[in-house]
């Protein structure tokens, strides 16, 4: 088993190298570079960069070299633990730009993940056990519709209803403006963030909720037809014990693998939602930096995302082997 995972990790590192190479090649070939775009912005301010100065800056940023050379420079920096500096603004270190964005994204995605699991397990069990009744059908249909409702459409609908019409919840951002937020007491601050959190969390929860419930329900229906369930019933156990102790525990196995796969969505699945809600997270950073052609920051984020996907897949396999003794990787 150790052997298996060692091999998987090696392949993962190789994959990571390929992904970063491809993405680096792509973004370096995007039309325009950070300097040209910055110069475009500076044009109105009347502080145009002289062409000599421009060339010097290009050279200093390494933009005059072929992208392959640039990639290997980036890679050697990475191996020394250096992700480089941003090419725009005050040229901060990439890690210093990304780090403050992780918190807001995690706050959003962890809350919605926990909520989705907390709600989907009872709902899925209910749907699986009461299969065929009208309550179950209504619930299933409703969840199915939710599953097909794109989260950004729902986000816009929520904004119209709760922020514009009813004016119950704030329109965007993670907290109120600094002068308002600064005057609040500690519980007031928490309440403020919570109010900003409601809509984004609702939007990122409902879609996965619908998916999980369907997943649990279909697994439960498969398990409930097994012989050992019949045995459990035959020996006179209560229906409650049969469902919770015998059936549900066996549906946990696929659920655990699902958890590993959602790890990615935790950090990356929110580009559009963060954009709509003005949430200062990773997804919005990525989109902004694509527009600004800030190569080092984009590469840092791509590395983060791909690492998460690979780690998620690995975690799924590992958990699978842990919870299901029948599985062994050898």
């Amino acid at each position, binding site marked *: 088993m150790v052997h298996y995972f060692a091999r998987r990790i090696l*392949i993962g590192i190789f*994959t990571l190298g*390929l*992904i970063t190479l491809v*993405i680096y090649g*792509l*973004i370096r*070939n*995007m*039309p325009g570079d950070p300097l040209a775009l910055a110069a475009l912005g500076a044009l109105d301010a009347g502080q145009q960069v002289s062409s000599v100065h421009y060339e010097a800056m290009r050279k200093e940023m390494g933009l005059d070299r072929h992208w392959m050379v640039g990639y290997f420079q980036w890679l050697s920096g990475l191996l020394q633990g250096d992700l480089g500096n941003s090419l725009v603004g005050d040229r901060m270190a990439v890690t210093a730009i990304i780090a403050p964005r992780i918190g807001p994204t995690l706050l959003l995605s962890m809350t919605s993940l926990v909520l989705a699991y907390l709600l989907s397990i009872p709902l899925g069990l209910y749907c699986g056990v009461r*299969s*065929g009744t009208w309550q179950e059908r209504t619930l299933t249909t409703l969840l*199915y*519709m939710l*599953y*097909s*409702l*794109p989260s*950004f*459409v729902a986000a*816009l*609908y929520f*904004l*119209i209803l709760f*922020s*514009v019409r009813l004016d119950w919840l704030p*329109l*965007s951002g993670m907290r109120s403006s600094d002068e308002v937020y600064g005057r609040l007491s500690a519980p007031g601050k928490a309440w403020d963030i919570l109010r900003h959190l409601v809509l984004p969390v609702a939007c990122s929860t409902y879609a996965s909720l619908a998916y999980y419930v369907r997943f649990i329900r279909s697994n439960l*229906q498969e398990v409930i*037809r097994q012989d050992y369930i019949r045995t459990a019933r035959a020996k006179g156990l209560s229906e409650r014990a049969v469902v919770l102790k015998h059936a549900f525990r066996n549906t946990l196995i696929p659920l655990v693998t699902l958890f590993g796969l959602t790890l*990615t969505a935790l950090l*990356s*699945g929110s*580009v*559009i939602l963060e*954009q*709509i809600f003005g949430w200062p997270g990773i997804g919005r950073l*990525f*989109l902004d930096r*694509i527009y600004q052609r800030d190569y080092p920051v*984009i590469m840092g*984020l*791509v590395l983060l*995302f*791909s690492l998460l*996907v*690979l780690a998620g*897949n690995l975690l799924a396999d590992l958990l699978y082997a842990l919870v299901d003794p029948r599985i062994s990787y050898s």
Partner: protein
Amino acid sequence: MKSQGAGAAAPRTGNQRKSAGRAAGYWSEVWRRYRKSRLGVLALLMVVFLGLVAAGAPFIAGTRPIACRYQGNWYFPCLYYYNQRWENPVLIREGFRRSPYPQRLREKDPRSIAIWPLFYADPYRRVEEGEWPGRPRDTGPSPPRLRNPFGTDDLGRDVLARMVHGTSIALLVGFVAMGIAALIGLVVGGLAGYFGGWVDVVLSRLIELVMAVPPIILILALIAILERPTIWHTMAVIGCTRWESIARYARGEFLRLKETEFITAARALGASAPRIMFRHMLPNALAPVVVALTFGIAGAILIESGLSFLGLGGDPSAPSWGRILNEGFPSLGGDSPQWWLILFPGLGIFTAVLVYNLVGDTFQEASDPRLRGSSR
């Protein structure tokens, strides 16, 4: 049990009473089971309806006659909406591009006849005063009213007309993108499954590679490298990034079919590899691929509208549903929120995604013999 795969096992193993059925028999059996689901049939009807709206958009909403008899000849000015070059040069010379059709027809040839679309409104411009008898100038932005059931946008363009004409964008993206994805997926998955060995190792790594990049990241990076992305670029990008599930299904099916007796028989008869793959294996591997394809269409519609919403969907004047959302979004923070620019296109996207998902689900249940009779 999982490795048993879905789909085409029916004609060979299951259902003894119908054992005479060949491939065609299998599909009619699938259709028989599909029809049992009322929701599935309803969704299929909606799919057909959306297709009709997309194909016949100029017949539903437009400011150009479907057909008109002008100075003794018949013309079809509505073709302009399909392709600007299809407008008859005679009509361009007669000045129909400068002033709108109803007016011009009356002025130049009082005896002209015209067959008009159901609804007089244009997806690309506002309707002006006196253009159509009794119809005032369309001002914008305006909430829904009698002559603009879905309201108008900032430029006074009718939202219903824009949505009707945007249907073809959504569906075209779905079909073209998934066509590309199916081609790549079937080739990669099919070759990996059929040849196995090192071919499989290499191609499987490729599939894993594509799976390891979050799709939105790859799509954004690909869209961003285009100087001036059009809707066709969007389709190509979605197609080139969303093929991995099709490839996985195709690989699984080809792997399974390779071991079956009828393939061994075909091989013993001396059939060539392409013949075995296309004539014998592909038709039997199709059911799960079609399922993945239907879900893929829903996904592609979703991605396209998302990209357009972010302002990355190509031509800004194209009336894509996501683009209308994009135009309405900034107004939400202002004093006069234009909710109709959000509500109706949102419903359009939702409906399209929902019906394709439903059709995919129903088809999956109908085509998978393992699930037969299990859903109560």
